[in-house]
């Protein structure tokens, strides 16, 4: 793997981050976020790099990265569909949304399509229960989903 290093913009952001905390280690989550933004996922090399920046042993980066569900320890597709599966969404048809995506992409939950474009995961409550069913596509919420709306969303993707 090529040298792991923040690009210039992220390096600046990282330096700004450190000023916000009295301890370097507190910048763990934001630094992992920066790293994931830059590399797409957190490889062992990236976690080692983050540990070095924050002066924390790599194991203490790893235990954090694996605790939180939004950090990717494996590469994910360009479009990451995260369907909320918790109660309010289930009551309003989340299972149908998941089934539609499975069928459409030909993948199961936790899988990435062969072309590397789509990853499907089920996630727990996203705090969008009033607009159920819903999913998060990469960073964005898509709410009040119907079969037609979901189709439209998928069509709109490059």
């Amino acid at each position, binding site marked *: 793997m090529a040298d792991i290093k923040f690009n210039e913009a992220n390096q600046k952001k990282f330096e700004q981050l450190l000023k916000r905390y*009295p301890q370097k280690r507190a910048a*763990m989550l*934001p630094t992992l976020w920066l790293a994931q933004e830059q590399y797409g996922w957190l490889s062992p090399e990236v976690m080692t790099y983050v540990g070095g920046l924050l002066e924390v042993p790599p194991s203490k980066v790893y*235990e954090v990265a694996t605790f*939180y569900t939004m950090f990717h320890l494996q590469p994910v597709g360009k479009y990451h569909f995260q369907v909320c599966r*918790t*109660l*309010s969404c*289930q009551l*309003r048809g989340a299972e149908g949304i998941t089934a539609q995506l499975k069928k459409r992409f030909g993948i199961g939950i936790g899988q990435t399509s062969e072309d590397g474009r789509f990853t499907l995961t089920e996630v727990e409550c996203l705090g969008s229960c009033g607009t159920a069913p819903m999913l998060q596509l990469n960073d964005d919420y898509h709410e009040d989903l119907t079969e037609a709306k979901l189709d439209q969303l998928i069509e709109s993707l490059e």
Partner: protein
Amino acid sequence: MDVMEAKVLTKNFGVKDSHTLPVYESTGGYNVLKRLFSMKPEEVIEEVKKSGLRGRGGAGFPTGLKWSFVPKDSPKPKYLCVNADESEPGTFKDRYLMELDPHRLIEGIIVCSYAIDCHQSYIYIRGEFVFPKERLEQAIAEAYAKGYLGKNILGSGYDLELTVHRGAGAYICGEETALLNSLEGLRGMPRLKPPFPAVVGLFGCPTVVNNVETLSALPFILGEGPEAYRKFGTEKSPGTKMFSVSGHVVRPGNYEIPLGYSLKKLIEEDCGGMKDGKALKAVIPGGSSVPVLPAKDAMEVNLDYESLAEKGSMLGSGGVIVMDETTCMVKTLTNLAHFYAHESCGQCSPCREGTGWAHKILKRMLAGEGRAGDLETLHRIADNMAGKTICVLADALAMPIWSYLKHFRSEFEAYIEK
């Protein structure tokens, strides 16, 4: 009292560009600060105590009292951590408070920080809330530019830094000590108590952790006075509260209502009644962790701390999940058990093992392989994990288990082979 009058938190929700500073200022925003800086911190705490404001995150602890536990003579820095980790299933109020009125929250943060002598505050926002985070960051930048944050706020001599800290996907970080660990760059594991955060909190310093909604009520309380706040709600549960209604109603959404408001009225009038004209079966009134109410109890109860306790449930975070007659209670409880098993941090044996075990039993029952004794085992798991652990995540599954088995036992029995 009519719902429309009781607007403490949401009065700007309908206003165009309500998230921007000019709009907030035009509705009287940040006016409270002048008064705030003329008061002594103890006086601020006193006013908040008088208002009867209680923590709106779920635990309902009196806010002013919580602040008063921060040792005034401590030489250490004090911190305010804003709990914006809103993750309790059925709850989506803080998200809208941050998206639609971030300055109200910031003003509330300034009030609390001033009262506890805090000069660095963190907003811990759940990782999935990317848009609310952007809104908050924009608002914070505006507030810094206008001198509401930073050094010497409005010439008062008081400094406050405010930082948004993004979580990364863990329900448990809504527990205040797990939040502190997460903020410190650790796994989100709840801490042993004592010591309590007011004394040993973030970075080992005195810390207050308050929910977004709690803090958003402060500009009103300081601006209009505690008496004005107490005009809403009941004697024992004063003020207004956000209720997030989801599930089988015509108009799900957020409703700010005075405490003591009728749940029946909320569902039938405000939310437009049951979706597709179905009959009501059950309501979880305060987020998925609180005991479920069967329709009869739900139709009788008022939404305040005391009335809900009388019916054997809790106000919690105000996440009202409405279920109609077609709902399978075994399936919904299985869904919740999956949630808690997935979200248990895993440190305490009873919670780590008990939540997973309960989920596996329910899943098996749902698959048609219920066994004699399953319900007794489920009940025993709930008994044995609740109250035996560092935090209350185990209790948060035990309460649904007990209440589902109590109110809907025959449905569960039907899943067990005779």
